[in-house]
């Protein structure tokens, strides 16, 4: 695979390193001379000095035969424009943009970028997963459809403990997809009794998330 990476900052650098070790052909476009030199010294001649939003530079970099262009700078506007030019002028089959403002995810998709990776979102999710006291973890975000898959732990004395799903009366736009009871997963029905220390995987509309949390964990 031939991958062109726009931006040789920390993200671009580690990404190119990983791709080089996996045996892919990689070219990093970096404007800053020193940065380009450092990467070349470490990874071999994989860096070209230049602007990833400049058509002549992209042409010299052979973007027309690239399988993927990954725009990894810290500026959302550069990442967007680089991906759009790669797509419109060089017919690159896949473009991936790093985004710093999570709000830009939907905008980038609408503007033809194939995939986005939000650094801010990734860090937030990872930190949430690591927080031991957090009983509610976002498993995955289904933003486009306004829903969320969440995992809840039923603490001792939580409102849901000792009651059937029917009694808990969740909002219509939320369902309990799975109950994990003593390490065993059960697909529940209305008469399933939720017990303390159970873990629940819930699919819920974003607007009902808080209510679901109150009804099950009480927080």
């Amino acid at each position, binding site marked *: 695979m031939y991958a062109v990476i726009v931006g040789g900052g920390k993200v671009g650098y580690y990404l190119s390193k990983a791709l080089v070790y996996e045996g892919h052909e990689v070219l990093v476009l970096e404007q800053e001379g020193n940065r380009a030199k450092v990467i070349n010294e470490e990874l071999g001649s994989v860096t070209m000095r230049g602007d990833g*939003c*400049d*058509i*002549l530079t992209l042409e010299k970099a052979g973007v027309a035969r690239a399988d993927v262009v990954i725009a990894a700078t810290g*500026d*959302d*506007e*550069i990442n*967007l*424009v680089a991906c*759009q*030019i790669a797509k*419109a*002028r060089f017919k690159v089959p896949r473009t991936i943009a790093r985004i710093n*403002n999570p*709000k830009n995810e939907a*905008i980038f998709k*609408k*503007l033809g970028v194939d995939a986005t990776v939000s650094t801010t979102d990734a860090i937030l999710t990872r930190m949430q997963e690591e927080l031991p006291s957090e009983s509610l973890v976002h498993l995955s975000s289904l933003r486009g459809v306004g829903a969320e898959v969440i995992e809840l732990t039923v603490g001792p004395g939580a409102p849901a403990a000792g009651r059937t799903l029917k009694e808990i009366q969740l909002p219509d736009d939320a369902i309990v997809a799975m109950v994990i009871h003593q390490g065993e997963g059960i697909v529940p029905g209305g008469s399933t009794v939720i017990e303390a220390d159970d873990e629940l995987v819930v699919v819920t509309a974003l607007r009902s998330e808080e209510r679901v949390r109150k009804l099950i964990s009480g927080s």
Partner: protein
Amino acid sequence: MKIVILGLSRFGMQFAALALASGHQVALIDRNPAAFNKLPDSFGATPVLGSGIDEDVMRKAGVDRADLFVAATDSDNTNLMAAQVAKVVFNIKRSIARVHDQNNADTFNALGMIETICPTYSAARALEQTLPKG
């Protein structure tokens, strides 16, 4: 008509002055507070402080109700992104990006979503047209 201009560059200010003189309503966005000090007190545009590629700032400047958005900062990429955001988020009728690089101006013109203006090319072309036929 209602016009929102992003960026108090010379181009942005010049265009704002011309539009105001023809009786249009103008809002100006810039992220640098000092930029607004350059404006004379009598300048009739509404100032809005903030980043022009942030949809909240754009809404505050009234892009959702405007007829025309002109992105005129000193950065081509900022202008291209802002003009497209005005289009896809606010569905504005006309959105224009000032772009120095003629190749990029052509590329984004061809995509058909926004219009681009390349002052470098326009000036070079205007000069070339004053020459006798070679």
